[in-house]
């Protein structure tokens, strides 16, 4: 319990907790003290001197900075005296001395604290007659952020954000006095993954968004509270639109999810929303080419053809693929249509049934966040297995860094690459890809008491075994084990990189064993990487699960669903994503693909999809997969339709419609599916997306009571627990054995991947990954290939031409290739898992 301190501000008494700053105490009374450098998310520095007020002290009433002085008992503060007024006027006159006053062309004009405070507290008249000091006006500190050094008031907010939150001091002060300016180090642009947040923090127009530059004025945009769909964190943001165009994206505060931060991909990569390449008309293949058609023609054709395939080959010959990039509503209707109208469980999404996941997601993001104003992080040790938050979930990365630096959280990282987070104290276990099961077993063996039941399960995973198979030294393993054994409240997180393919289920079991032994089975979490990975699982977009994670043979759940839907549910398990695509053209005769692009993932799938009798693709762009389709149904993006998304901590959040394109005939996903079901004699007649949300709430027990209105702007987290965890033996799957000169390939998700949606933001392409393979210097030396050389990487499944990058962060003996590179699908070398043996030849 914190002590309360009572003080007097402007003759009014207020009681606040000890340690509160005078500024915040005044804000409680509704008294505004002007500030520039002070920000609630940053440590005080008191450098702008704008908040000087009279505060009582041992030497009487003295001017002190309200943003850095903590309250004291019986303190007297005066904020409106003649002296304070004079100081505020003088200070503003001083700040404006060299300010260019080019408000008409400044993007901040209209929402600028400097403008507002000059009007409210400023002198009104300028005394300056001399010319102003000239500095750089169009200074790029990165490809996406422009710095105007003339407008800068040297408040240090940008410097402090990069230091305190990103832990990347890439901006600094140079020169002195009136010449002081903020700049990057020579030739080293700001490359922090969340650097765009300094634009939101800047109190003047010094830092502006280069992607949105000059395309909006704050007084004429419509602001829609929405959320980001680039990763599974579900950061809250605001979409600013004007004349049917998305103009810019800014962060929105949600203290349960993203604080107020956004990553640069979420903030800047939105050019695709208004791209001219978007689909605007249904396309039907006639004489071999896709030609525009009417909606009734296209939907009629889809219904006729699918019914014909079902009659001829049975319901199991039809499959549907959902998308974790799309909303709960769209995915729910797709699986309902598949199960009700087609009568098959052939429904899955990428990283769906092929990944060994857990149903519940992260316990709570807020438990990881350690803002200066909140409680200490709830987790003292975080184990990351096959997850690289810096590339996959950048705002989680910021939370983790804050937890490490302010909350003394320790990280144990298991990853084949020396990822960014390994720079913090803790343990880094650079396990060979595919050997994670042995490593986790070895960890449990080191943690567990010899002779205990848990120990007996992993008795064979000795230090020697771990060293031989995983390439991890016993000392590192013991250090990680000591951290985990000493943890009060450890959090164990694993991701799809480790959970794909046949090593997934044993890894999940190995981690379950470890979590059980540590006494925290609920703290084990699988995180999917796409915006609605969690929602797709919750809503049964899986071949072996009904909505609400019910098993197919759960007769009570199947009966309840059948009653609601008015049909009998199919009982036979369906095919997974990989199985459907592998057998396309074989057992699977027709596919309905919603917002997925498997043809770009593996060249093999492009071939199998082409062999299908009938392929329907519902997309926003003519992707590689859509180009193979018989019918392409144009959908609108997440910004143009209402929908809800479930993030990695089970928080259901809503993304309302922010804009529409009056020239386009594209329709919301739920509406297309609703009409399609009508063509199958199953009229659902949902009036709007909210009606679908209401139906989901009725169908999925964990979502009970959720309504569009109840979700509000901050979303709601559903409570739930997975199936009871139990000890079982986790067997290491055999690693492929092949010639000694071959390397172990591993693929990794990267933030700037050059995928379709990212590639359309021109300004960000400088940071994008090219078609490359990264090798440790020792491997590149032994192979005799150098940096920049083009090599042929081949595996038993295929080969790719890639450029060599020498990278010390990659484990020796490992070839690392980023996923989703344009023109270089790493899936060509893989067979469903994230690993394979590859050989590398010079071209």
């Amino acid at each position: 319990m914190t002590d309360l301190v009572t003080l007097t501000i402007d003759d009014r008494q207020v009681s606040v907790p000890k340690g509160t700053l005078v500024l915040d105490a005044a804000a409680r009374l509704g008294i505004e003290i002007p500030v520039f450098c002070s920000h609630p998310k940053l440590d005080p520095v008191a450098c702008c001197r704008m908040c000087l007020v009279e505060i009582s002290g041992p030497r009487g009433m003295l001017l002190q900075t309200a943003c850095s002085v903590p309250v004291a008992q019986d303190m007297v503060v005066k904020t409106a005296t003649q002296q304070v007024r004079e100081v505020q006027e003088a200070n503003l006159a001083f700040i404006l001395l060299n300010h260019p006053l080019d408000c008409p062309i400044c993007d901040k004009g209209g929402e600028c604290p400097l403008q507002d405070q000059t009007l409210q507290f400023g002198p009104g008249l300028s005394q300056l007659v001399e010319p102003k000091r000239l500095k750089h006006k169009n200074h790029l500190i990165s490809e996406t952020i422009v710095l105007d050094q003339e407008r800068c008031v040297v408040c240090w907010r940008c410097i402090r954000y990069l230091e305190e939150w990103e832990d990347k001091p890439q901006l600094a002060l140079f020169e002195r006095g009136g010449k002081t300016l903020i700049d990057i180090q020579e030739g080293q642009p700001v490359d922090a993954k969340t650097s765009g947040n300094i634009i939101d923090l800047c109190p003047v127009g010094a830092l502006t968004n280069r992607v949105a530059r000059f395309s909006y004025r704050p007084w004429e945009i419509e602001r829609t509270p929405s959320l980001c769909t680039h990763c599974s964190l579900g950061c809250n943001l605001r979409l600013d639109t004007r004349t049917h165009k998305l103009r810019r994206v800014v962060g929105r505060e949600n203290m349960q999810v993203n604080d107020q931060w956004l990553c640069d991909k979420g903030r800047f990569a939105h050019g695709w929303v208004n791209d001219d390449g978007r689909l605007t008309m249904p396309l039907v293949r006639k004489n071999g080419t896709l030609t525009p058609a009417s909606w009734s023609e296209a939907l009629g054709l889809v219904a006729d053809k699918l019914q014909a395939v079902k009659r001829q080959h049975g319901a199991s010959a039809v499959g549907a693929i959902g998308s974790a990039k799309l909303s709960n509503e769209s995915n729910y209707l797709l699986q309902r249509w598949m199960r009700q109208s087609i009568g098959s469980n052939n429904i899955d999404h990428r990283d769906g049934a092929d990944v060994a996941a857990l149903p519940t997601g992260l316990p709570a993001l807020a438990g990881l966040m350690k803002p200066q104003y909140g409680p200490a992080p709830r987790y003292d040790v975080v184990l990351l297995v096959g997850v690289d938050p810096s590339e996959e979930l950048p705002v989680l990365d910021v939370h983790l860094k804050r937890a490490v630096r302010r909350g003394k959280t320790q990280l144990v990282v298991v990853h084949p690459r020396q990822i960014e987070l390994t720079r913090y104290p803790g343990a880094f276990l650079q396990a060979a890809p595919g050997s994670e099961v042995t490593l986790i077993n070895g960890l449990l063996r080191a943690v567990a008491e010899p002779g205990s039941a848990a120990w007996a399960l992993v008795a064979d995973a000795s230090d020697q075994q771990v060293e031989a198979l995983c390439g991890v030294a016993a000392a590192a393993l013991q250090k990680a084990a000591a951290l985990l054994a000493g943890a009060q409240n450890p959090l164990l997180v694993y991701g799809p990189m480790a959970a794909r393919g046949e090593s997934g289920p044993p890894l999940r079991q190995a981690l379950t064993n470890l979590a059980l032994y540590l006494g925290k089975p609920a703290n084990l979490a699988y995180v999917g990487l796409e915006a609605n990975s969690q929602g797709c699982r919750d809503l049964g977009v899986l071949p072996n699960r009904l909505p609400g994670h019910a098993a197919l043979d759960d007769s009570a759940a199947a009966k309840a669903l059948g009653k609601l839907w008015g049909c009998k549910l199919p009982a036979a398990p369906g095919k997974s994503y990989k199985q459907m695509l592998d057998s396309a053209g074989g057992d699977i005769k027709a596919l309905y693909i919603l917002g997925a692009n498997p043809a770009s993932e593996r060249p093999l799938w492009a071939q199998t999809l082409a062999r299908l009798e009938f392929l329907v693709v519902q997309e926003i762009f003519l992707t590689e997969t859509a180009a193979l389709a018989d019918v392409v149904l144009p959908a609108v993006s997440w910004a143009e339709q209402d929908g809800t998304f479930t993030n990695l901590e089970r928080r259901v959040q809503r993304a309302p419609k922010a804009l529409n394109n009056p020239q386009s005939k594209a329709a919301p996903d739920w509406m297309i599916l609703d009409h399609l079901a009508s063509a199958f004699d199953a009229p659902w007649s949902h009036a709007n997306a909210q009606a679908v949300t209401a139906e989901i709430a009725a169908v999925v027990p964990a979502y009970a009571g959720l309504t569009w209105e109840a979700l509000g702007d901050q979303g709601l987290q559903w409570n739930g627990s997975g199936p009871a965890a139990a000890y079982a033996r986790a067997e290491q799957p055999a690693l492929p054995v092949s010639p000694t000169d071959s390397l172990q390939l591993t693929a990794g998700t990267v933030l700037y991947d050059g995928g379709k949606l990212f590639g359309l933001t021109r300004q960000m392409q400088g940071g994008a990954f090219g078609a490359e393979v990264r090798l440790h210097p020792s491997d590149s030396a032994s192979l005799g290939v150098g940096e920049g050389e083009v090599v042929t990487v081949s595996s038993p499944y295929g080969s790719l031409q890639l450029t060599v990058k020498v990278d010390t962060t990659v484990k020796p003996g490992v070839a690392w290739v980023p996923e989703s590179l344009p023109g270089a699908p790493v899936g060509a070398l893989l067979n469903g898992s994230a690993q394979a043996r590859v050989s590398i030849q010079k071209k």
Partner: protein
Amino acid sequence: MAIREFLKGATEIGKAMGVTLKALAEQPVTTEYPRDPVPLYPRFRGKHELRRYENGMERCIGCMLCEAACPTGAIYVEAAENDPQHPTSPGERYATVYEVNLLRCIFCGDCEEACPTEAIVLGHDFAMANYNRRDFILTKAELLNPGEPNVVIRPE
């Protein structure tokens, strides 16, 4: 009686003819428009024009303040960044689109007053009739190249 009435009538006619004869020598008060130009007050507000500097650069910087000031929403502006090698206007910003909807405009002159660079001005051209509704939307090219540049910069 008859003579008196005749004289009275003749006087009246004479008076009337006097007015006519007097006016015969005066200049006419009407104007033979369109043959003759119409006299306008200096502060008359007619069709909009966008001005340039002497060096040919556009004065408009695309700040959209006119759009904000317009009480009828008649102005639409889109801005972009100048190419540093070939700038359209001084500074970093210029207008890529500038449209005035004459059917909405009430010629109040608020746009002139809002303009920080005196780029948008209301000229003296008042003949704005047209055959097509679409033609009532003045584009940037039309605004920059008025038929008769006859702009008066008002001192206020």
